Structure formats: structure tokens, C-alpha cells
């Protein structure tokens, strides 16, 4: 069995990370197609707010609900995007029992902006969506396509960030500003009072009031949110989950990938596999050929272009080789050769998956 298939067989969740423009969504789709072809009931989810997953799968649009994608073979494939608003709304309706309290949160102005126009809700909702899909046991395999590097880091750090926000000491300041009665507490929090005054000067009282109101409103969800984030962190750090890096054989992209690997390690997420997407198709071209004058001219041009492309790619591949040596042989590596046909629908992905078999 190839390292790639081992990866698929031994992990329930596969998270793909990588820098912008390396083909992360295409590789997520490829992995999902391959998992489905192996007979797994597979879901591919994307955190990226752009519409790349639908495009890579060759469908018009995807929604927050799983859509079935028709594939060859015995397995089944589903795809979905993260719809922050509906996930958040559902979370509130599930965990807040009183309808009045539900409405209070749903009508909060910051909540409404946060789930529609402002960023910041994608990461939490993505983690919740991933957990929900995993817990549902509807899927044997879940493939998660994350946003480009810097935002992937936001995603990976989200659980910890939310845990920090919902620490008791922090929340007390947001939700019960008038309940601090002990003199010890007052001394401890004097510094925060000064900071709050500074904050009011910086932001204005209207913003601060809106924000305090928001925190007080969502306070009822504190235990559920913390529980959810703890479960998310446990899942992502468990052996059921594999992190896969997508990169290209390009010196700059390799350097950027190294920084991302460092972040993964720091956060306790183990990298299991690397996809090197769109590697140059090295061929053994003849050095000289004797042809008719017109064909000879074309041959010289084609040969020249090949030599240039090959030399550039060899240098990039050397840099990749150094990275892979540093990372060690425990890591699976799949090189995906740049194709001579479009990979922009499910059939293209199926063909691409087969090329991996012939190479492996």
C-alpha cells in the first residue's frame, strides 16, 4: 500500500494546510476523491471563504449542507463549505434553552455583523462544523481544506484563543463589572480599570458598550463554547487526525512551507504527509536530432524551452530535497506531476488520482 493510501486508511480526519496558490483545494479534492474511491464515505469541507472547492469539484455551488458528488467506484463523496451564520445560529438554538435568550443573542448587533460581514467567526464555526461532522458518524473520512497560511494559523490557534477569552478572570470583567465587591478584587483589578478607561478613550463608549453587551449576551454559552473548543483541540491532536502540507517545488514556497511546519509543531499538530503539487514532468529528450529545416527550427526552440524549464525546476527540487531530508523519512511524500489536461472537475481528479497509482 502506498504512503498516501496508508494515510487515508489510518486517519478519520485529514487537514490540509499550505500557503496561498499551491493548490490546496485541488489536493483536498483529490484526496477526497481518492478516499471515496477506496470505498470510504467521505466529506470534503473548506474553510476558505473563496469558492475554490466548488470549482475544483466542477460543481456550480456548494452550501453549508453536505452535497453529494457523483464519482466512479463504490464509495460516496460529499462536499460542503462553512456557512458561519447558519452554524452559529444552530449552535445557539441548540445550547440556549430559552427562546428569549436565543433571540437576544441572535439580535445582538455585534453578533449579526460577526456572522455576516466581519471576520473572526469562520475559525470557530469551522472547528464546530468539523466536530459535528465527525461526531455524526455519517462519514468515514473527513478532508478539511484550510485557508492560506497566515489564516490557517488563525484556525489552528482558535481553540486556544477562545479558551483565553473565556477564562473566568477575563470574563468577570466583561460580564459582571458591578459585582466586584471584595477589596482584594478591587486592588487586583485596578490596573484593568485604568486600561478600560484607556480603551474607552481609544474606541469610544458606544463601541465598548456594544462589546460588553455582546459578551454579556454570549456568556450563557460559555460552558458549551469551552467544551466545544476543548473537544476540537483534543480531536486535532489525536492520532485520528493527520495534518498534510501542500506545497510546490518552488524555493520561495518551500521556505514559506517551512515556517508553517514550525507553527504546526509548536501547536502540537503532527505533520504526516506532504503533497508536492505540480512538479515539472521531467522527460528524457534527445540531445540532438537531424530534421528538415522547419522542424529543426521548432525542435531547437522546444528543446531550449525544455532545458530552461528543467534547469529551473531541478534547482527548486534540490531545495525541496533538503527540506524533506531535514524532516525525516517518517513523513510520506506525494509528488503530483503537472498534467497536460485540465483538472477542474471530478473526472479530472479521478484521472489525477490514477496517475498517482501508476507512479506509486
Amino acid at each position: 500500500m502506498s504512503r498516501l493510501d496508508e494515510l487515508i486508511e489510518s486517519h478519520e480526519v485529514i487537514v490540509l494546510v499550505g500557503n496561498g496558490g499551491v493548490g490546496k483545494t485541488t489536493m483536498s479534492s483529490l484526496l477526497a476523491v481518492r478516499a471515496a474511491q477506496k470505498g470510504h464515505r467521505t466529506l470534503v469541507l473548506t474553510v476558505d471563504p473563496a469558492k475554490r472547492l466548488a470549482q475544483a469539484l466542477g460543481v456550480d455551488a456548494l452550501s453549508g449542507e453536505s452535497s453529494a458528488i457523483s464519482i466512479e467506484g463504490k464509495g460516496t463523496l460529499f462536499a460542503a463549505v462553512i456557512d458561519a451564520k447558519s452554524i452559529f445560529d444552530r449552535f445557539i438554538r441548540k445550547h440556549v434553552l430559552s427562546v428569549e435568550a436565543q433571540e437576544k443573542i441572535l439580535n445582538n448587533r455585534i453578533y449579526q455583523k460577526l456572522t455576516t460581514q466581519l471576520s473572526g467567526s469562520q475559525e470557530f464555526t469551522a472547528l464546530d462544523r468539523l466536530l459535528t461532522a465527525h461526531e455524526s458518524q455519517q462519514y468515514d473520512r473527513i478532508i478539511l481544506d484550510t485557508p492560506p497560511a497566515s489564516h490557517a494559523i488563525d484556525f489552528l490557534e482558535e481553540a486556544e484563543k477562545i479558551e483565553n477569552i473565556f477564562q473566568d478572570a477575563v470574563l468577570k470583567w466583561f460580564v459582571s463589572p458591578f459585582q466586584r465587591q471584595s477589596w482584594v478584587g478591587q486592588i487586583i483589578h485596578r490596573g484593568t480599570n485604568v486600561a478600560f478607561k484607556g480603551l474607552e478613550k481609544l474606541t469610544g463608549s458606544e463601541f465598548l458598550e456594544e462589546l460588553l453587551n455582546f459578551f454579556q449576551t454570549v456568556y450563557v454559552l460559555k460552558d458549551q463554547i469551552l467544551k466545544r473548543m476543548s473537544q476540537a483541540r483534543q480531536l486535532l491532536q489525536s492520532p485520528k487526525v493527520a495534518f498534510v502540507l501542500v506545497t510546490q517545488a518552488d524555493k520561495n514556497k518551500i521556505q514559506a512551507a517551512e515556517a508553517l511546519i514550525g507553527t504546526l509543531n509548536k501547536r502540537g499538530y503532527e505533520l504526516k504527509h506532504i503533497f508536492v503539487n505540480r512538479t515539472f514532468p521531467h522527460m528524457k529528450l534527445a540531445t540532438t536530432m537531424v530534421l528538415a529545416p522547419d522542424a529543426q527550427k521548432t525542435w531547437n526552440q522546444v528543446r531550449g524551452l525544455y532545458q530552461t524549464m528543467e534547469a529551473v525546476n531541478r534547482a527548486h527540487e534540490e531545495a525541496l530535497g533538503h527540506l524533506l531530508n531535514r524532516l525525516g523519512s517518517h513523513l510520506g511524500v506525494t509528488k503530483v506531476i503537472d498534467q497536460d489536461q485540465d483538472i477542474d472537475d471530478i473526472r479530472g481528479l479521478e484521472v489525477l488520482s490514477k496517475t498517482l497509482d501508476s507512479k506509486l
Partner: protein
Amino acid sequence: MGASIAYGYAKKGARVLLIELGPISFYENFFHLGSMGPQPVGLVKNLDIVLLTAESCLKEYVLHYLRVKKIYEIFFENRVMRAFIQAAPAVAELSILGKITSQIRHVGPPMEYDHVVVDAYATGHFLALLRSPAALGEMIHTGPFGVESRKIIEVLLNPQCCDYTLVATPEPLPVQETKELQEALMAEFGIKAQVLVNKVLNIEPTEESVSQLGQITKVEEPSVLQFCTYLNYVRRRQDSALLQLKDLDKNLKYFPWLMNTTEPIKMLELLSERYFHE
């Protein structure tokens, strides 16, 4: 491309700040600059590069605004405040956009540059960045945050001082992404963004002659046919992408794939020359 445009302005004698949005720096390794951060680093004459993160922008703004270092320390060394900054919606985006537009708005520490070039986030995250001041400006009517949000968006939407450039490579996915971003910018903000296409491969022989070569050599040299097929596919993919991009911007600017140029400054020189003289 961002660095090349910045380089071109600097070469003309303007003082230029190239802003990269963090936390990870691309230019740090690309130009061998050492560790990048919120302090500008000189790349060449007249051109500085800086790596901005929300926290660094907010720190600078707070320190400048409050002026009292003690309050600043309380503000940032207090875990309640740190959590607040992390949790408060739009604070990160507003801090970054606030810094980018600070010179025009005359807010915060002075920046003495003639041009600021921002190498921004990819599609969806860039839209989210722009939506923040618009959303906050609508919601908060009084106080510095509401007022500054409206001023920031006013600067960002003023074509006299701000323009937007979308960079694509000549391939289906980037082209589609560019199309969607251009449409969204126009629909949501009325921004008309110009389009550049980078890494255009110059394939001199015609498609027909390459096909013929493949056919002539297919028995003796099958790998030549294989490469000819690949080359013609790359050409068709590129041609189709260029056609679609031309639909998005009639003045589409093309930039060659500089495969033989490995020296970063030389690369900037070649691309900027093309940008300013095409």
C-alpha cells in the same frame, strides 16, 4: 508584483513603503532581510519594507494616542486586555487598515512616504478585511472607532488616493478567483480594480509546428511527443486564461515568467520596468 511596483516608484525617486500583512513574512526570505517586523527595513534606496500584524499596529496606535507609557504597559501587559483585543470583532482589521491609511488621515505616528504599496491577503480574506471598517462604521455612530472606521473606508474608496490591483497567473483557478474578487469589489464597494497577469510563459514556436514536431518524432523519440503535448496544453491553458483576463480588464498588463532570473532585485527591476513602461 507588489514589490516590483513599489520598486518602480522608488526608482523614480519617490519614497515608498511596501507593506506585507503578517504574521508570516514572504519578503524576509525572498530578499534575505533577516527577521521582519513592524519597524521598516530598507531594501534599496527610497524603498522600505515592513511586516504588519494587528497587534503591532494597535500597539503603535495606542502608544501614540495615549502617550503615557505606563497606561500603554497596563493596556498590553494585562491578560484581560489581551483577551479583549483578540476577541473584539474587527479590532484586528481596523488596526491594520488604520495603519495603512494613517498617513492620509493624519492619525498616529507620522509616516513620510509618497506611496504605500500593500501586498494584501488573498480573495476572501481581503474582502473580509475591507468589510470590517464598513460594517463597524455603520454600526457605531459615535466615538473614535465609529468615526475612524468611516474615515478609513472613505480613504480606501477614494480613487484619488487609492487603487487596487489584482494579480493572477494565467491558469483557470486564479483567473476565476480574480473574476470573483473583481466583481465583489465592484458590487460591494464600487472599486474598479485593474488586473495584472504574472508568469506568462513565452512559447515561441506555434501550436501547429509543435504538434508537427511531436508527430515527426513520435516513433524514435516518444518523449518529444510527450513534451510537445504538454507544451501545447500549457499554451492553450494560458491563452484561454489571458482571454478571460482581458475581458476583465481591457488594459490587462502581461508580465513574463522570469525563469532565468534568480536574483530578486534584478527580478524587481525587470518587472517594474514593464509595469511602468508597457
